[in-house]
């Protein structure tokens, strides 16, 4: 049976010792990290620390050294994110830290994407995401992006205060089949409708399925604005995105 001291990385050892309380989780993580390579431990540590530059560098190095992509995912990225999940559940870290870790994971996954492509594994879909013009609230959108990426979607994040033109340019540039718009303010919600109108005016509306969300947004509002779907939260966002992709496929086969 592995012991904490078998883990080479000091940061990982401290994380397990300090923050993990459930015996089965302690045992599982000691087992996992004690058998993983030092580089994978370093990668997991950098991810837990939200250090995307180091995750980026270590992932590139690991793949260049011939380490299997699945090992990088298992022992580096997912193993690190597992600890992040536990720390978040126990209220040791909070949403901003989780999002920093998710960005670090994305930095690592970026090096795995070409291998997926070479293996004939296409992304589930391509999504453009942004908070509408005049709105600077981005937590909900960022959680949606984290969920979508974790589910195999390629997501291009336009950030906050996104204009109609920025949405349209991104859809065209990335040939995205899905667009997600978020708003938290009742004052900025109408900008979702304006963006949809802009897509209609530019004759681009048929090219993309549009989903909307945000705390004050409702299904009724989404219908009024002419959106293709409404997601009440980040979990619903992924289901909706998959459902809209199915609709696209059905329309193409009709």
């Amino acid at each position, binding site marked *: 049976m592995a012991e904490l001291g078998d883990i080479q990385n000091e940061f990982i050892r401290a994380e397990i010792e300090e923050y993990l309380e459930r015996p089965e989780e302690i045992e599982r993580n000691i087992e996992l990290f004690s058998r993983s390579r030092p580089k994978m431990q370093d990668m997991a540590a950098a991810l837990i620390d939200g250090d995307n530059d180091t995750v980026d560098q270590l992932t590139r190095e690991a793949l260049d050294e011939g380490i299997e992509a699945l090992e990088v995912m298992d022992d580096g990225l*997912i193993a690190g994110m597992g600890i992040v999940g536990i720390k978040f559940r126990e209220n040791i870290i909070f949403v901003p830290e989780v999002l920093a870790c998710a960005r670090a994971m994305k930095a690592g996954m970026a090096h795995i994407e070409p291998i997926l492509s070479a293996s004939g594994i296409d992304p589930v879909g391509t999504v453009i995401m942004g908070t509408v013009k005049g709105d600077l609230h981005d937590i909900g959108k960022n959680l949606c992006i984290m969920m979508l990426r974790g589910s195999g979607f390629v997501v291009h994040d336009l950030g906050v205060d996104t204009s109609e033109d920025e949405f349209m340019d991104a859809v065209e540039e990335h040939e995205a089949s899905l667009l997600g718009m978020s708003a938290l303010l*009742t004052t900025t919600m109408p900008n979702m409708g304006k963006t949809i109108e802009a897509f209609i005016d530019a004759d681009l509306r048929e090219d993309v399925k549009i989903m909307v969300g945000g705390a004050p947004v*409702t299904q009724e509002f989404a219908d009024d604005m002419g959106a293709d779907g409404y997601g009440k939260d980040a*979990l619903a966002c992924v289901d909706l995105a998959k459902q809209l992709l199915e609709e696209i496929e059905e329309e193409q086969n009709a």
Partner: protein
Amino acid sequence: MQKIDPEAYRKRLERMSAIFGEMVEHADEQSLTRCPYKDRHDRCTALFGCRHRRPSEEGLPHCVSDDKLDYRSAWESAPAEAVDKMRDRLKKGRKNEQ
């Protein structure tokens, strides 16, 4: 270039989705009692202004909120109607100005 078995990759996606799914559920629960823009050091990461912010010499401003307010209950529950009402009010206001 190395190759990845699609079935093996699918299993990893399921694992990631499970981890992120639990996080999102927890974030939803936690947002009832703690502002989601506040980090572990009680610093505000929001891009917008907030009256609970206080300047800090260390970069990000400090949050002084006591987190006792459930802000969500104050949010509009029928925004579509509210937007329509607001449009009507604006129209009436413009007419009165003319």
